């Protein structure tokens, strides 16, 4: 039912090719500016270019207004970065989202990450109305329906008129998962639902507790999910002992082993130690069956991504045929 490219790909993006060919994928994050300043994107893209396979362009993360993900994604593409644009369920209804997806694809964007979205109370416009017309699983299903059934959520075919050709958005669909959130027992089930809905890849929240993550992956493998979806494990390099303690104490569901906190406390050069820990984590994650890549979230520390990727032995990035960001 789904139209595939010549080499069996759904979207033909660089990210899809790397994952399909069994390479250990590397993605990172690029947060758009809280203004109309395109130069910010160029600067961040400069740090990521050549070091990652694709970069997430966040969508009003934490409900703080930033340049739109699609616009920033297009600007990133011009800087040689393949974007994974993000869509949350908080701000847009099904009409707006389907519209955005058509537009994104027409602009050459073909990786989309589907998220629930942080509640508006966390951001800078807490008195706004939210939307949540759908949840992230229904969003994944809606995008999969656009791509594979070539239909909108209402059932209409994706064509401009009865005589016009069907032109559906051929996108790679991603979802997110927090392996440590509550209820813990439900997390693998939720992941299974995203896979059933049509997710092609999953990025997890940042992991510090390798044992607990290994247990999560065991549950994932028991359901055979690792063969149906490409899972990228999230990592965030620690900058300081304070950051490590903050992550342990204040971030929902995150457990940070005491050993990391001790190392950060003792280290003379804390940022360097944080990078070292991150590289060790990546190496440990590569050993876990079912992990197809990593997602590096070095928020406001994008300049360290190159060092991390190189230190983990993941540089240079493989070059699949064709240029980055151009569909084949």
């Amino acid at each position, binding site marked *: 039912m789904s139209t595939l490219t010549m080499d069996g790909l759904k979207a033909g993006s660089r990210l899809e090719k790397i994952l399909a060919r069994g390479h250990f994928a590397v993605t990172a994050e690029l947060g758009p500016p809280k203004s109309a300043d395109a130069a910010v994107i160029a600067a961040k893209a400069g740090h990521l270019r050549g070091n990652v396979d694709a970069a997430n362009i966040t969508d009003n993360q934490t409900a703080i207004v930033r340049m739109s993900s699609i616009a920033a994604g297009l600007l990133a593409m011009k800087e040689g970065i393949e974007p994974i644009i993000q869509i949350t369920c908080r701000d847009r209804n099904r009409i707006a989202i389907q519209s955005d997806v058509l537009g994104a694809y027409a602009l050459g964007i073909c990786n989309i990450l589907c998220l629930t979205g942080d509640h508006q109370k966390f951001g800078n416009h807490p008195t706004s109305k939210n939307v949540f017309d759908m949840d992230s699983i229904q969003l994944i299903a809606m995008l999969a329906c656009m791509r594979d059934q070539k239909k909108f959520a209402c059932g209409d075919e994706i064509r401009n008129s009865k005589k016009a050709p069907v032109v559906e958005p051929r996108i790679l669909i991603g979802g997110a998962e927090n392996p440590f*959130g509550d209820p813990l027992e439900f997390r693998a089930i939720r992941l299974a639902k995203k896979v059933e809905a049509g997710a092609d890849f999953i990025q997890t929240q940042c992991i510090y507790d390798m044992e607990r993550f290994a247990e999560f992956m065991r549950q994932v493998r028991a359901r055979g999910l690792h063969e149906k979806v490409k899972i990228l494990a999230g990592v965030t390099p620690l900058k300081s002992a304070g950051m490590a303690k903050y992550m342990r104490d204040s971030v929902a569901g995150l457990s940070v082993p005491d050993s990391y906190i001790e190392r950060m406390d003792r280290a003379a050069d804390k940022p360097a130690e944080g990078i070292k820990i991150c590289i060790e984590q990546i190496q440990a994650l590569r050993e876990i069956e079912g992990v197809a890549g990593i997602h590096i979230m070095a928020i406001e520390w994008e300049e360290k991504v190159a060092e991390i990727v190189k230190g983990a032995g993941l540089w240079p990035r493989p070059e699949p045929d064709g240029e980055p960001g151009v569909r084949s």
Partner: protein
Amino acid sequence: MITAVRKPFAEIAGMLEGSGKVLILGCGTCVTVCMAGGEKEVAILASTLRLANQKDGREMQIAEATIERQCDREFFDSVRDAVVQADVVLSLACGVGVQFLGEVFPDKAVLPGLDTKFYGAAVEQGVWAERCSGCGTCVIGEYGGVCPVTRCSKSLLNGPCGGSQKGKCEVDPQNIDCGWQLIYDRMKALGQLDRLEAVKPIKDWSTGRHGGPGKIVKEEALL
């Protein structure tokens, strides 16, 4: 019931400024149960206003009355004269009652003394919590008796978001339980966890407020 809280006194006093004859009209149903607009609360508000007026030397006649409820025409009959005589009626009913009062007495200035909050119930004496959003298509039975539209801060239908921690919702961990933790626990106890594995399709929101103000007609009840 429909729950409400009384508006801040300063706001009410501001609304009534310049009025000569005020009728404070209470409601004996929902707002009596949630202790916001019943006979007692009418008396307290009336006394507070009179004390303030005494202090500031303001002339204002304040009448008090409470009827069974303000969402059925018949109950206004007993206070018709009192309403007609007043310059303004401050209704302590929920938003429904205030508007209905205005429809029954279209020539009368009608003011709301309460801020209507939600459909809820008393979880303990003195504490009321929201339980229903009036979405128009009830799916409580599919979720072990817990409404995901109302109890989940994001109305998610397929499982919790990443902000569920120790059974609390990150939007307000002090006051809001994670609706999905409640659903999970309830369905586990019922042995129905497998039902949560099915992908629930996107909701039709048009059966509720998103379809415009609603109306119900029961043909066999029409005169």
